[in-house]
């Protein structure tokens, strides 16, 4: 297994820039997820690591060796495609054996390796089946088997669970993660689904418009997002952004919100702009009976274990997460304030989070 390092990687298709000077280090044995909306460059990045696209500039180091401009076949990595790309004219056994046939193994070695991979993925009873007769989950397993059968340095996966139905996807998330741990793999996984990313990843890189915005553990990505985009993209619903009409200065620890004052973590940085945002997650707000920000309940989403309230205030619509047995009515007047000291101030001029007591 291997460490993958991406240095100043850049890719443009004509005028369109798909990946902008990105830098990433993927540690050995890490489950690394590239997350972002469609068109953010995550798949292009993955395809460059695989050798299916050549970088416009920059380097890709696999175990310290620059492989950025080598052919895909010379990189010793495996790729799992969204549509699996199982060869329809071969049965399961031949699909699994296909990568080995290029490596001059004897027939018994090939058979042994195919059997080992098949047992690991519990598809050994399907070896003689035609690919077209398999169910979605089994196709997924065969695709994984084909990837791991030759024990490559790294696994690259491009939304491999995208075509599975919801119930099966959750199961495969668990299986994938377990498989990764069992074989000590290094995995780079591309998805636009934050749940998949959060549940599987050691670290997540959030990308948008060709740039890596933040690469951190799921917990840090969720709690301490570095940009407004990351804060909004992660979490369901995303973070609330409450406009603040004041300049933030270092050491500031409260802000004015309408007519009340709100305590915030002590800031380490200031802003030049007068238009900034207070970022607060819906679960970090609570309903109170007095001294809170006033608003009207605009909508209630019941989600089983909790409810998401949309509250109309003079500061815009704000989402609050409450227990599902909280009794509220549409149009009811309520007040809310912050539950803890986990707020983040985003600089309105560049959408970056300010360093603070909480963020550092």
């Amino acid at each position, binding site marked *: 297994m291997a460490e993958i390092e991406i240095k100043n990687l850049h890719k443009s298709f004509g005028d369109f820039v798909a990946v902008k000077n990105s830098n990433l280090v993927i540690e050995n044995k890490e489950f690394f997820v590239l997350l972002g909306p469609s068109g953010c460059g995550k798949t292009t990045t993955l395809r460059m690591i*695989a*050798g*299916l696209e050549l970088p416009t500039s920059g380097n890709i180091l696999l175990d310290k060796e620059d492989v950025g401009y080598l*052919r*895909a*076949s010379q*990189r010793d*990595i*495996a*790729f799992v*495609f969204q*549509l*699996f*790309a*199982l*060869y*329809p*004219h071969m049965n399961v056994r031949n699909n699994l054996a*296909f*990568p080995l046939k*290029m*490596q001059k193994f004897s027939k018994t070695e090939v058979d042994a390796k195919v059997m080992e991979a098949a047992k690991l993925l519990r598809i050994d009873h399907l070896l003689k089946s035609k690919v*077209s007769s398999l169910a979605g989950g089994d*196709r997924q397993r065969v695709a994984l088997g*084909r990837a791991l059968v*030759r024990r490559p340095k790294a696994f690259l996966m491009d939304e491999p669970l995208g*075509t599975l139905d919801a119930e099966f996807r959750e199961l495969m998330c668990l299986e994938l993660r377990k498989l990764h741990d069992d074989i000590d793999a290094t995995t780079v996984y591309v998805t636009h689904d934050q749940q998949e990313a959060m549940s599987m990843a050691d670290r997540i890189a959030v990308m948008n418009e060709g740039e890596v915005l933040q690469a951190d553990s799921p917990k840090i990505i969720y709690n301490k997002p570095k940009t407004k985009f990351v804060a909004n993209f992660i979490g369901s619903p995303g973070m609330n952004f409450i406009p603040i009409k004041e300049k933030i200065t270092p050491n500031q620890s409260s802000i004015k919100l309408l007519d009340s004052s709100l305590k915030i973590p002590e800031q380490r940085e200031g802003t030049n702009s007068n238009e900034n945002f207070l970022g607060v997650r819906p679960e970090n707000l609570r309903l109170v009976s007095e001294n809170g920000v006033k608003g009207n309940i605009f909508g209630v989403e019941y989600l089983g274990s909790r409810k998401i309230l949309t509250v109309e205030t003079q500061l815009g619509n704000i989402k609050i997460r409450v227990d599902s047995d909280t009794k509220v009515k549409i149009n009811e007047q309520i007040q809310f304030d912050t539950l803890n000291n986990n707020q983040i101030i985003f600089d309105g001029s560049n959408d970056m989070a300010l360093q603070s007591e909480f963020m550092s």
Partner: protein
Amino acid sequence: MMDTSRSPSEASGFSRKLAATIIIVYMVVTLIPISWMVATSFKSVDSAISYPPEVFFEPSLEGYVNLFTNRSRQPKDYLDTLPPPDTWYEELVRSREMVITGPSKFLPRYSNSLIIGFGATFFSVFLGSLAAYALSRFKVPLKDDLLFFILSTRMFPPIAVAVPIFIMYRKLGLGDTHVGMIILYTVVNLSLSVWLLKGFMDEIPREYEEAAMIDGYSRMQAFFKVVLPQATTGIAATAIFCMIFSWNEYAFAVLLTQFNAQTAPPFIPTIIGEGGLDWPAIGAGTTLFLIPVMIFTVVLRKHLLRGITFGAVRK
């Protein structure tokens, strides 16, 4: 009560019967000339030209014997001096007061047809699939213009360029050679082959060859091991079209071949019997001529059907 035993999209009993009737009538109409031709090949020379035409007749292999042999008419006194005939076909020829002077040119002409037909089909499909793959996958400068140019070579009937080709072939020494005919038929078929196959290649997701390339194969290996097997339907369809053209082509064959590389189509009409055309021999030649292309189509038909079910399951 409503008949609920079938789904709404299924044809009713009546329309099925109607469809079957139409197909049978059409089949009979199409098969009459062919069955007449096959019947003629088994007639004797006399019964072939008798009026009214004989629908029921005593079958004879005279046509086939005449097709494969050269004969000469001899006076009866001379025939009586000969030893009795060794074989059934010699006996048949003797009974017409003739002797066999040697094998006819039909067999060499027929094998020329096979060599040139299959050769041209192979190269049309092989070169066509490589070109189609490249045009389907790579950024080729002026791709659309190139494709239009390839198509434009079929915008006039090929025979329109007969004279320049005749002169070129004479200068290049390609006239009346197998290689020359294979090149000619390949070129004529290529535009069709490239266009047909490009359509099929476009349908094959790139992920297949990408998967193979990541698994350690070169692009060429991936093309042959992964892409081509999935283009079987297209290759079969294209091969049938190319084969039918090269097998049936008459005009260029008349113009460019004479002794060495003459194919069966220009040869068959030259079979002349005593006092006119030998219709049973021509019938025999045509019947035999029909067989290879028929077998070829039937064999590839399986792939056509398999291809259709392949396409139904996309992933």
